């Protein structure tokens, strides 16, 4: 895989130069700090605002609600940002002719794709660590306890989910000329696969189960393990990389 490390260095530099690392980390940190506060104080805020004589029974929020709430928020915003960050990664470089210049040198197309996926995964890894630490810390301060091990596993599973989203988006980015079309198709596929993750049998192998399993680990709730989903999502991500490589191989750059 010639030129992988050179590519990876270039792509990592690009992540810092375009400030993607800071932007993605800021979003994860914002939700990591904000979700525990909102979870803790929403019942009090509703009470303080007054309910006009109507009695609303609000369950007392727990630390698990805060940790799961953060992941729920990040499944929406994190996935959207992953698609937005990755959708132009290849399509834009083909459009501007950068890909043709870079790939005219003696470097492999697989190295080109893997370096992009790894550099973008690095950006999200930094964000996940910062956001996760912020959320766990604030949850511990506000609620007095927080399931550290369960939350760690939940974040690892969410990290795999994000890498899957990046892989799928890179594939569509190599397929489409327009980066918005690539992003739209990737998002549609991710939403579809997540939506059917609760179906019996097939659902066990779909990406949405990663999040469901993570939630169960935080809650220490019984239920089937999510290993089938972990294996199939890793395989789908690998397949995305292969299809991206096949698509780039066929393309006239």
């Amino acid at each position, binding site marked *: 895989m010639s030129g992988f490390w050179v590519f990876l260095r270039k792509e990592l530099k690009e992540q810092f130069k375009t400030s993607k690392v800071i932007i993605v980390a*800021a979003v994860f940190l914002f939700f990591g700090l904000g979700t525990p506060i909102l979870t803790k104080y929403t019942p009090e805020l509703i009470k303080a605002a007054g309910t006009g004589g109507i009695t609303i029974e609000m369950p007392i929020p727990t630390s698990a609600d805060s940790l799961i709430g953060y992941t729920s928020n990040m499944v929406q915003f994190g996935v959207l940002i992953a698609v937005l960050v990755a959708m132009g990664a290849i399509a834009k470089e083909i459009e501007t002719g950068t890909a043709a210049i870079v790939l005219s040198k003696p470097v492999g197309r697989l190295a080109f794709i893997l370096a992009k996926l790894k550099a973008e995964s690095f950006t999200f890894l930094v964000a996940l660590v910062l956001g996760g630490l912020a959320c766990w810390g604030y949850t511990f301060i506000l609620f007095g306890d927080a399931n550290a091990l369960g939350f760690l596993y939940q974040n690892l599973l969410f990290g795999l989910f994000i890498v899957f989203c990046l892989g799928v988006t890179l594939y569509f980015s190599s397929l489409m000329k327009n980066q918005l079309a690539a992003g739209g198709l990737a998002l549609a596929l991710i939403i579809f696969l997540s939506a059917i993750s609760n179906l019996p049998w097939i659902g066990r192998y779909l990406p949405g189960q990663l999040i469901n399993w993570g939630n169960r680990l935080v809650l220490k709730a019984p239920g089937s393990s999510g290993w089938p989903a972990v294996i199939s999502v890793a395989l789908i991500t690998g397949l995305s990389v292969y299809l991206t490589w096949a698509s780039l191989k066929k393309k006239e750059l």
Partner: protein
Amino acid sequence: MNSDINLAKLLPLLIPVAIIEFGLLVWALLDVIRRKNVKGPKIVWIIVVVVFEIIGPIAYFLFGRGEESAEDDSESNS
């Protein structure tokens, strides 16, 4: 209005959230003003950045920034 919210405990926790929000807003605003190559009218991006908290600056950074030209780079280096 009866409130159980402990402001003394809450305020220090809100400061980092406000710093992130305000920091992104200022950073995006300065970038819109300074950058020569912005996709679309600058005034529209300024409104988007100021009006839509968090989402506005992120949208600008992902979609609004044009490529830095070699001229811009040499100016910033000098």
